[in-house]
């Protein structure tokens, strides 16, 4: 007689080998492989690296004569760290003990929020870093005068008819603006591409799980 799946299940687990728990060694010190813990680790490592880099760069910038770049870098990266620290705190609040739908929804909402915020910030971050470099080198001391003014002076010797706005060549302003626009345009995309390479498949799976449960709810 054909056995039902209920009987196969019940009878199968009556056998002694069916429910043998694996040995657990030093579990508390095991590195978690859970997605939320991986995100937490990634965020913490990134934030520590950003803080260390911005401090080191601030100090170095004073030594190499581009303190404007160092200060702008430091302030911008501090804002980035502050916002991402808040995102990390939100991640800590996700409860694994709720229903699968609530849990997946909470994680999905966090994921969408952090992508939206970091995408928006990337749109500004790269242009700010670029402009801080330009300003830093423009005002860097070059034998008693700012490097930028000295450079313009030398350009004017070769091209005396060049058009200036506030003492800066128009073509230079045009190139800088073009680069700023490109960085703003690609900044957000670079962040999304980067995230998709590492977590794209996981995010897709998350969406599929959500859709499956939502279909069941309707």
């Amino acid at each position, binding site marked *: 007689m054909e056995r039902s799946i209920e009987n196969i299940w019940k009878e199968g687990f009556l056998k002694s080998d069916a429910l043998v728990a694996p040995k657990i060694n030093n579990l508390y010190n095991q590195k978690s492989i859970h997605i939320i813990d991986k995100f937490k680790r990634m965020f913490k490592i990134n934030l520590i690296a950003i803080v260390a880099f911005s401090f080191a760069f601030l100090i170095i910038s004073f030594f190499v004569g581009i303190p404007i770049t160092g200060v702008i870098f430091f302030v911008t990266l501090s804002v980035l760290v502050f916002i991402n620290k808040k995102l990390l705190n939100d991640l800590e609040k996700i409860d694994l003990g709720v229903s699968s739908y609530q849990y997946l929804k909470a994680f999905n909402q966090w994921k969408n929020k952090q992508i939206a915020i970091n995408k928006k910030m990337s749109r500004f971050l790269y242009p700010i870093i670029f402009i801080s470099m330009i300003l830093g080198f423009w005002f860097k001391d070059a034998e008693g005068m700012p490097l930028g003014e000295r450079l313009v002076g030398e350009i004017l010797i070769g091209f005396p008819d060049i058009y200036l706005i506030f003492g800066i060549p128009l073509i230079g302003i045009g190139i800088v603006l073009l680069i700023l626009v490109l960085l703003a345009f690609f900044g957000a995309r670079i962040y999304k591409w980067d995230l998709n390479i590492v977590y794209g498949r*996981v995010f897709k799976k998350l969406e599929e799980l959500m859709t499956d449960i939502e279909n069941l709810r309707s």
Partner: protein
Amino acid sequence: MSSDFYKTSIVPFAGIIIKLCRAYTNSQEDFEDYYQEVCLQIWRSKDNFREESQWSTWVYRISLNVCLTLLKKKKNNVQHFVSDSITAEQTEDNYAFSDESLNLLYDAIRKLSEIDRAIIMLYLEEKSQKEIAEIIGTNPNNIGVRVKRIKIRLKKILDGKIN
């Protein structure tokens, strides 16, 4: 982890965890990783248990939520949810029960979607539609229909193998 907590609060429910982890893995190594991770997350989350449900139900929720969103690195170093696209053919030979019918049933269950796997496991553990709906976070009325569909699908898979 406090060994007392493990012995008193996890070991009595280890069967639940083992059964679930088996449905979402295809090798002994993955199974052991999943089991350890579930135990670790239960221990870490224990302070969030508010006694609104039974401890066993709460262990089910944690186990299921961990299994649904666990990350493992595959050979090509790309991160995946391991439970994704497991086929019976991929299952390791040494990763089997002595009961052949149970092995076939598990192979069939692994062919279902992640959520269907969860539903049928809870059903086979004799959880009511209401309890299943609470654990998954869905409408109890739809659970009965889904269970019927899953059973038909499992039967088709099993018939192809057994008969």
